[in-house]
């Protein structure tokens, strides 16, 4: 009887295990500052657990569990809910966090308005943070919350976010974004908001002074971001949130207008899903190339050949945890390069073949070692890269067109010379030497 229960339990746990939503794993380490209570973020953490993540909690100064053990990341994802922590155990250093990202581990950074190791790390990711102690303030719209608790409408059209989200309550710092294409902004500050450390109207002069002093200028307006992702070249994803309150139960339950709950819970789930590589995750299943009217890939191509290149793309579906063919990319491009791209053409999806993208083009009349290159980089989406090397050779000596009408006179000329030679030889050998002999004899006398 006991055995049966055990087996059932095992099956159940296996079922839960296989219910991991992320494409990279379900182990999740939450580094939580002791000053913060786990219960204040229960909606967010419960949501993650329901999705199948295995949460492990740890204080920043705890020694175990280590984030990197023997050079291998111990967890698939890390959440750093340590906005004001200044000292960590010695395994959590900025270099280790960067290491994690390069090992395809995903990290959520919650920043605060104090100067901490995380805020200095954030500037390495092209985030330009305001001076310490200057939170986001907005006097708009008129409301009953403090000026530092701001409802932010979700206006950024990111495919990672659920559409039609209610405004999100936010309390924290804004940051300017550097000119880095790897940044993926999810939530920008409202136009009317700005960063300031004054709590009185008399602080107005200080704001103008700060702006006039130059340097980074004023943190104001909708170019400031408050939630921004960063996707590394290798695919690891980081999320920077300027205020940890965004994830709190209090903000999740708080109404934005009467009767309308805030979008915090869903927004937090969406950005976590993006960070943990559930959404906007693509992969190249494979690519092939062959000559038109053939099916086998050529090991080399001749200049001016017409060639079909096709690639197969899959997208990760977090609800079924499977890779599904994906035909939704409309701006993919194929390059045919030898040092420089000789041809760059769009690689459109094939109608009726899910996940298939194909293009036919004529190989340039240049020979050399070429590459089919698909390099798809779009903000928020997994970077796709595929490169296939293929030699392009000139036609073989017997592959050129022959017996051209343009060359008839030359053919006729060559044949007529040969014929002339034969007839001349016949006449020469058949003729006798009498004439010359006679004349020669006459001369000799």
């Amino acid at each position, binding site marked *: 009887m006991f055995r049966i229960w055990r087996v059932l339990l095992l099956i159940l746990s296996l079922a839960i295990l296989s219910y991991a939503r992320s494409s990279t794993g379900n182990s999740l380490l939450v580094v939580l500052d002791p000053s913060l209570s786990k219960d204040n973020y229960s909606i967010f953490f419960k949501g993650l657990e329901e999705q199948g993540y295995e949460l492990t909690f740890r204080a920043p100064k705890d020694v175990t569990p280590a984030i990197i053990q023997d050079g291998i990341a111990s967890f698939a994802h890390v959440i750093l809910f340590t906005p004001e922590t200044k000292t960590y155990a010695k395994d959590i250093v900025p270099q280790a966090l960067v290491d994690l990202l390069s090992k395809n581990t995903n990290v959520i950074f919650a920043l605060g308005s104090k100067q901490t190791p995380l805020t200095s790390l954030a500037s390495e990711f092209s985030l330009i943070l305001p001076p310490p102690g200057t939170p986001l303030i907005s006097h708009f719209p008129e409301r009953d919350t403090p000026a530092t608790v701001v409802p932010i409408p979700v206006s950024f059209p990111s495919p990672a976010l659920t559409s039609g989200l209610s405004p999100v309550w936010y309390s924290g710092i804004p940051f300017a974004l550097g000119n880095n294409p790897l940044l993926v902004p999810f939530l920008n500050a409202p136009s009317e908001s700005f960063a300031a450390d004054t709590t009185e109207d008399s602080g107005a002069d200080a704001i103008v002074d700060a702006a006039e002093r130059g340097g980074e200028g004023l943190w104001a307006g909708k170019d400031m971001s408050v939630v921004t992702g960063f996707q590394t070249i290798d695919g690891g994803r980081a999320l920077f949130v300027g205020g940890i309150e965004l994830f709190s139960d209090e903000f999740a339950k708080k109404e934005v207008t009467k009767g309308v709950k805030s979008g915090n819970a869903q927004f937090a789930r969406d950005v976590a899903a993006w960070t943990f590589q559930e959404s906007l995750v693509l992969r190249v299943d494979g690519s092939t190339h062959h000559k038109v009217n053939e099916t086998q890939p050529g090991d080399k191509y001749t200049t001016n050949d017409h060639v079909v290149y096709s690639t197969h793309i899959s997208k990760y579906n977090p609800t079924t945890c499977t890779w599904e063919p994906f035909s939704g990319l409309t701006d993919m491009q194929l390059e045919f390069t030898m040092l420089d791209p000789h041809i760059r053409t769009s690689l459109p999806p094939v109608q009726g073949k899910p996940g298939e993208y194909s293009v036919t083009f004529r190989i340039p009349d240049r020979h050399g070692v070429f590459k089919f290159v698909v390099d798809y980089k779009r903000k928020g989406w997994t970077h796709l890269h595929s490169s296939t090397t293929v030699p392009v050779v000139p036609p073989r000596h017997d592959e*050129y067109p*022959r017996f*051209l009408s*343009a*060359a008839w*006179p*030359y*053919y*006729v*000329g*060559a044949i*007529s*010379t*040969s014929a*002339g*030679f034969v007839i*001349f*030889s016949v*006449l*020469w*050998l058949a*003729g006798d*030497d009498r*004439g*010359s002999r006679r*004349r*020669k004899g006459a*001369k000799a006398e």
Partner: protein
Amino acid sequence: MAGPKASTAASKPASSAVDPNAIHSLWKAYNDTTPSRLKLIDSFLVFLMLSGIAQFLYCILITNFPFNAFLAGFGSCVGQFVLTASLRTQVNPENRGEFKDVSPERAFADFALGSIVLHFFVFNFLG
């Protein structure tokens, strides 16, 4: 053309001015003094020259594509002309002193071998 010049060298100084008479006498001297075997060669040389000129005109006036075919066709004429001309010099009785060791038969063997090799390259190149 090397042939007529060489064979009429003796009569040439007499008529330095170009007039129909001089040309006529030149022609007459050639006709009378040249063995028929050499005339056979000279006719062949004229033939080769004419077909070479025809191909050259086609190349200049109409098209030089495919150029390898032009080179082959025109080259066959020029090469055959050179080989034939050298055969002529070697069998010409007047040059006997110069080619003491080369019998006319040997000269023809050289000519035949050279021609075969030439035609091999011509057809190889004709495309």
